[in-house]
């Protein structure tokens, strides 16, 4: 029998980035916050110390910091009519585990999305007419505006020491920045990172075609940095062990460097580690969450933790799953187009072209996770979609983020996979190649969604979360078109060898890492018929339950998703201060 613990004011499920940001706002006002996190504190382990931090096999190949798939995997089917399969070792995306969550092992690319992204449906309809968005694409406005999010973007960038080049300062376009950027109230708090050789080659080629390349914004610290909370970052050492790793130099903006050490000093803050949440207790009559149930992984004992307010701040997938497990909100049904929980599940559409230069030294090991050089001309609706037959687009860029040799060795097509010829190709091209890539948007499709899979259970006997997902016609057409643009830029670089110019094709392949940017499942919006949470991230069917993270995105853009979800988390923190004073629908 589970023991019931004393009630707490705000209980947050998942101790990652969003929980840290929400708690920062709340505990500054002495509001009681308890975070439940199933993982550990990584700060003093082999993962955070030299020389053991620099171990590609342990942390990257064997996923030493990631969610344990033997405990809780996801299942997948590409279409509703297909059987599902549990993904027994997921490589396509990598949720993290432990205090700081996936934001410990991210590479720090910290975008604001386009000014029109939160009003994406309005944008397309006003530019191309009401009939332009296909019926199978439930593209929705978020119910919040870029202007409302801007102060929180600004705050997040200051807290995480984001390095970058402003492109739009209070409405004035700035040379060297992204001319498609939404208006910023301030410059980036740190100057851009050093450009890579790959970035330099890309920059010249892009400029020769009339595009405007700029340094991608990154929470990799250009220099020693102290944030407004007095928390410090060291200088980035371009060590090439950024994404999939914890930065032992504390030079990457992460929750375990900038948020949790500070929060642990605050009296109103508590984090319980090795606490695996099994569900949210929901009073359907009263339309309230009464608390959460969790297992203490040290003792194996189960507890009920009552709360005034419950916040789901776990990874995209877990936020959705917890609502489905306890029947909070109506599950989405793609057949009838009714229900909401699990809808608007999106990924991203990645493609790229390898380029090889005999006489240029790319030195891929001289890199940080955020050293990107990017153009935004072909992203989202930054270009005219009339007659193209698809919506969306992608940011296009060049970067090397690492030269880790197990995974980062491009060789020309046709190279044998072993033997002397294979060695010769690796020796010849390792330091002389890079990839020109597109990070493409992924707009929602009626047939891409999340629900429970009762055929398979996790280590606690609960059903797995099932993805029904594939790259649908819109994304395939978009990727083909954007990849032709990559090809044109790659050609302008005049490489000795150029890889094939092909867009992403179905089917979604779980064996290949693409991006950890899975979004949706608990979309936000102004209309309860199409959203799980309100524009204030408040659950429509439980006024004291809030959901934060990429699970609230109604679509996925052609940028890394961390910036907006961080801004939304800080805003939620402020909203909860107001809610704590006077509980109500916000």
């Amino acid at each position, binding site marked *: 029998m589970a023991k019931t613990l004393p009630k707490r004011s705000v209980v947050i499920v998942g101790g990652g980035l969003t929980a840290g940001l929400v708690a920062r706002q709340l505990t500054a006002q002495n509001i009681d916050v308890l975070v439940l996190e199933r993982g550990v504190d990584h700060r003093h382990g082999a993962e955070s110390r030299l020389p053991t931090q*620099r171990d590609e096999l342990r942390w990257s190949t064997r996923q030493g910091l990631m969610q344990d798939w033997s405990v809780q995997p996801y299942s997948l089917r590409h279409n509703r009519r297909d059987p599902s399969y549990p993904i027994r070792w997921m490589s396509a995306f990598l949720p993290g585990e432990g205090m700081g969550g996936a934001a410990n092992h991210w590479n720090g690319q910290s975008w604001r999305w386009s000014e029109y992204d939160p009003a994406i449906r309005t944008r397309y309809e006003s530019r191309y007419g009401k009939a332009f968005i296909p019926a199978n694409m439930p593209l929705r406005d978020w119910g919040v505006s870029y202007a409302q999010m801007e102060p929180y973007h600004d705050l997040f960038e200051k807290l995480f020491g984001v390095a970058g080049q402003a492109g739009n300062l209070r409405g004035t376009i700035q040379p060297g920045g992204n001319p498609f950027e939404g208006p910023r109230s301030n410059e980036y708090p740190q100057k851009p990172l050093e450009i890579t050789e790959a970035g330099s080659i890309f920059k010249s080629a892009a400029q020769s075609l009339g595009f405007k390349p700029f340094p991608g914004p990154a929470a990799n610290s250009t220099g020693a940095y102290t944030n407004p909370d007095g928390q410090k970052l060291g200088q980035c050492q371009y060590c090439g062990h950024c994404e999939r790793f914890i930065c032992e130099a504390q030079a990457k903006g992460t929750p375990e460097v900038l948020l949790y050490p500070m929060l642990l000093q605050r009296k109103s803050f508590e984090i319980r580690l090795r606490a695996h949440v099994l569900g949210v207790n929901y009073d359907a009559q009263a339309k309230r969450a009464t608390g959460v149930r969790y297992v203490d992984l040290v003792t194996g004992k189960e507890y009920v933790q009552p709360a005034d307010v419950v916040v789901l701040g776990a990874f995209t997938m877990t936020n959705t799953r917890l609502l489905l497990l306890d029947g909070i909100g109506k599950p989405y049904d793609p057949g009838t187009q009714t229900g909401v929980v699990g809808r608007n599940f999106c990924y991203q559409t990645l493609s790229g072209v390898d380029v090889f230069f005999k006489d240029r030294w790319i030195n891929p090991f001289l890199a940080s996770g955020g050293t990107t050089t990017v153009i935004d001309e072909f992203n989202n609706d930054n270009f005219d979609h009339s007659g193209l037959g698809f919506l969306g687009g992608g940011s296009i860029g060049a970067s090397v983020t690492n030269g880790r040799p197990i995974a980062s060795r491009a060789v020309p097509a046709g190279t044998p996979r072993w033997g002397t010829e294979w*060695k010769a190709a690796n020796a010849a091209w390792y330091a002389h190649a890079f990839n020109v890539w597109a990070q493409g948007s992924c707009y929602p499709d009626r047939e891409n969604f999340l629900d429970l899979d009762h055929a398979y259970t996790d280590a606690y006997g609960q059903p797995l979360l099932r993805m029904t997902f594939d790259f649908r016609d819109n994304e395939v057409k978009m990727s083909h078109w954007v990849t032709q643009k990559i090809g044109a830029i790659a050609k302008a670089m005049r490489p000795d060898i150029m890889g094939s110019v092909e867009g992403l094709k179905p089917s979604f392949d779980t064996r290949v890492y693409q991006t950890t940017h899975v979004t949706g499942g608990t979309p936000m919006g102004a209309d309860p018929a199409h959203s799980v949470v309100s524009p204030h991230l408040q659950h429509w069917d439980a006024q004291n339950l809030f959901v934060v993270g990429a699970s609230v995105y109604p679509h996925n853009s052609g940028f890394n998703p961390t910036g907006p979800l961080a801004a939304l988390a800080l805003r939620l923190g402020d909203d909860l201060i107001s809610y704590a004073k006077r509980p109500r629908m916000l």
Partner: protein
Amino acid sequence: MSIEDPGKSPRREFLKQAAALAGAAAVAGTVAAVESRAAGAPAETAPFEGYEFFGPDEAAFVEALVNVMCPADQYTPNGVDCGLATFFDRQLGGAFGQGKGRYLRGPWNQGPPEMGLQSPLTPAQFFKVGLNAANEVSMQRHSKPFEQLSPAQANLLLHDIQDEHVNTDSVSLGSWFNSLVYPLFVQACFSDPMYGGNYNKVFWKMLGYPGLPATHALDMVQYRGKPYPQAGNPKSILDFS
């Protein structure tokens, strides 16, 4: 000078005796592999420290496999001398081989390849199943186990397996090779030498990967677009431990 003749390793002698006594063809390959390593091998080869997972037959197969995939050439010594077989042994005998982090609950159904391997076997079990099946194919084709094939025959067989041209009733050898054997081969070559492969950082030297600890804030500017001077002299975790 050590008391024991370095050319006469106890293991080699044991295997020779075993082969003579039993007439066991299976160990002959291992003997050959060990002989070839000991005879005239350059000083910079991985010391043999015993197998914790492979039996002699399995060791013979794996040693032949890594020597075909990594022949001695101008880039590296042969696979055994680079420690690649030791890497396979340690990984399959350890947490990876036992399926750490892999979801191994049923029910079991074969799905499209994009779903990844759908097998109740641990990687260690799957490795053995595939090894036996590959040996069966070798016997059918050449009336010899894999380790007794000529390098050209063995190479051709591996290519056919990679391309899914050979299958047995019990196991998809293509999936065995492409999802288990080949990734282990790449990891053996390029992971930190503390795991037993990449002996003497030979594959890192081949690439020009400088290894650790990589505090490159100044290098980033100084060597942008230029050869990196330390690329030929990489450092590993052991160098800093």
